């Protein structure tokens, strides 16, 4: 034990001093604006060495604390650097004239005022609200009906479940292009056959919007269905049996027993579709890229007829190179999502109290 402890001390001190030395060298090089390629490696190795030194530190009393620090450090560090710091910076940048690299002055709420004076942005908000509303109803309805179908006693249900869920596995970009092909080639053949009019749904804002909803339901309903199936399976068999003995019709069983009993599931699914439809980006980008003309909205001609909020933020900042305005829009986006989440938590907690 003694040998072990003294060797631990040596390792620990070596790691600590080595690590500190490496980090100091690296930071001095950085501060001197050196271009030596090994300074990055020094910094990382130094950091790991310090952590290892703390880890091997032999005083038993504090060992537990050190282990806790070392265990918590990697995730907390990455989290702070990728989420917390950019969030704080981002909210700050939205009040400045930041252009992605430098900022010259504080502009107060100018960006916020500017975004609400853009008809194209107002249009994006309205379109997103409409999209969310349609999807909340349609996805949940379709998913619930699929779940009812998949919880009845039929042969081959495992296959149907897997098949309905399958589209959810595929990323929005790939899926968007597959559907772009379908709307541009297959559906046009259908309209040619039916109305003798070669018409692509993606060419007009209104029908393109419907197209996005169709694709979204196709992608998402299978996933929501799985959650409804889980919910429906928690309805005890005895209750359903008792109902059928008492002569309840299938409709009565559905509306009086099944739906009230899975109310928490319905809450979960509603909010899941709400937030996910609200954040919709990939399909929007791949299917229409937000294009589509609107002849007159608030007195302006718009070319972003199918552009939803997430895509509008991206286009404002990255494509049109207006970083501070894009960031202000993103902050608004964040506030809306935060409010929705708080409402969800309130509703769920209330339900739990009632139960």
């Amino acid at each position, binding site marked *: 034990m003694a040998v072990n402890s003294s060797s631990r001390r040596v390792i620990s001190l070596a790691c600590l001093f080595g690590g500190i030395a490496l980090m100091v060298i*690296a930071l001095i*090089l950085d501060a001197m604006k050196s271009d030596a*390629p090994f*300074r990055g490696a020094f*910094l990382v190795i130094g950091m790991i060495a310090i952590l290892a030194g703390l880890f091997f530190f032999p005083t038993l009393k504090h060992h537990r604390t050190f*282990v*806790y620090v070392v*265990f*918590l450090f*990697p*995730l907390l560090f*990455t*989290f*702070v*650097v*990728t*989420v*917390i*710091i*950019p*969030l704080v910076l*981002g909210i700050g*940048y939205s009040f400045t004239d930041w252009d992605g690299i430098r900022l010259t002055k504080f502009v107060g709420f100018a960006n916020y005022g500017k975004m609400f004076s853009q008809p194209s942005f107002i249009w994006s908000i309205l379109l997103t609200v409409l999209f969310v509303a349609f999807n909340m109803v349609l996805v949940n309805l379709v998913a619930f009906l*699929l779940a009812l179908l*998949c919880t009845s*006693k*039929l*042969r081959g*249900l495992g296959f149907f479940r*897997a*098949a*309905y869920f*399958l589209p959810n*596995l595929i*990323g929005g*970009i*790939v899926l968007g*292009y*597959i*559907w772009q*092909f*379908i709307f541009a080639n297959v559906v046009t053949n259908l309209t040619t056959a039916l109305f003798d009019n070669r018409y692509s749904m993606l060419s007009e804002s209104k029908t393109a919007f419907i197209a996005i909803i169709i694709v979204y339901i*196709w992608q998402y309903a299978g*996933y929501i269905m*799985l959650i409804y199936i*889980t919910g429906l399976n*928690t309805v*005890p*068999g005895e209750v359903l049996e008792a109902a059928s003995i008492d002569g309840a019709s299938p409709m009565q069983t559905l509306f009086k027993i099944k739906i009230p009993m899975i109310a928490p599931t319905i809450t979960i699914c509603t909010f*899941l579709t709400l937030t996910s439809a609200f954040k919709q*980006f*990939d399909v929007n980008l*791949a299917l229409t890229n937000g294009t589509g003309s609107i002849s007159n909205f608030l007195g302006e001609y718009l070319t972003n007829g199918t552009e939803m909020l*997430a895509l509008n933020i*991206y286009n404002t900042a990255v494509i049109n190179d207006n970083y501070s305005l894009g*960031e202000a829009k*993103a902050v608004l*986006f*964040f506030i809306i999502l935060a409010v929705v*989440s708080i409402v969800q938590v309130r509703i769920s907690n209330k339900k739990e109290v009632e139960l």
Partner: protein
Amino acid sequence: MARRRKDTEGRLERGPGAVIKVIIAILIAVYVLFPFYLVVINSAKTTADITANPISLNGVSFQQLGQNLLDVTTNTHFEFWSAFGTSVIITVVSLFLLALFGGMAAWVICRNNKTKWATVIYFVFIASMIIPFQVVMLPLIATFRDVGKFVGISMLQSIPGIVFAYCGFGGAMTVFILVGFIKGVPYDLEEAASIDGCPPEKIFFKIIFPLLKPVLTTVTILNGMWIWNDYLLPSMMLGQNGKVKTLPVAVQAFVGSYVKEWNMILAAAMLAIIPMIIVFLVAQKQIMKGMIEGAVKG
């Protein structure tokens, strides 16, 4: 735990009602799977055959399929194998690190749940789950660029940088699900080991971590589906036409350069889908279960 009723329990439905239900189920399945059918048949055709009739099997041949796949995989705009490799490395390394770091952090938070700092950290993690990527992406790129320039490690356009970002973004949900599980692990187990002189790091790796296997499967599935399919983060960090590309970024870049060559685009789409389908066929049950658990907990 809620009671689960097995679907196979009891008799199967019979009669005309059941037949109608099966027919409806089949029709829906045909509708849902039809796009996949279109992808497969049209990536085995020439552009002319697709324009002539995208639904029929006319012009479908293995030879043409091979030709299209060869064209796609050797295309310099797509660079399929390189993008595929990048995606695999990013996903696998991120998932491994998230499971390891997430498990470590969740355990520490759980074991200190009576202290103020652990409560605060846990609360910040949970609260951060509502933060959309859009609000952090612009400053994130700026921060990574500045940090990278300062320390001499390229954080943008590099695989380590993107893995770092995924650890940061995936951390919150991972910790949330893992803490929920670890709370249920009896503390006696650890106490006994601790009295026997087992140091805390050994307790974690020898006792706790192996116990986490089922919940780590769930976490890995959820994170894996997200990371593999994610487009916005890699496109922001790696750039549209950078040297390093993930599969979704490569598909986007490829389609941009081949506007009307649908046979190539669909062949590319097929290549991008196949890995996911294979994983799904192998681990169908776990994936569907993992997705449900993630939704109900998150």
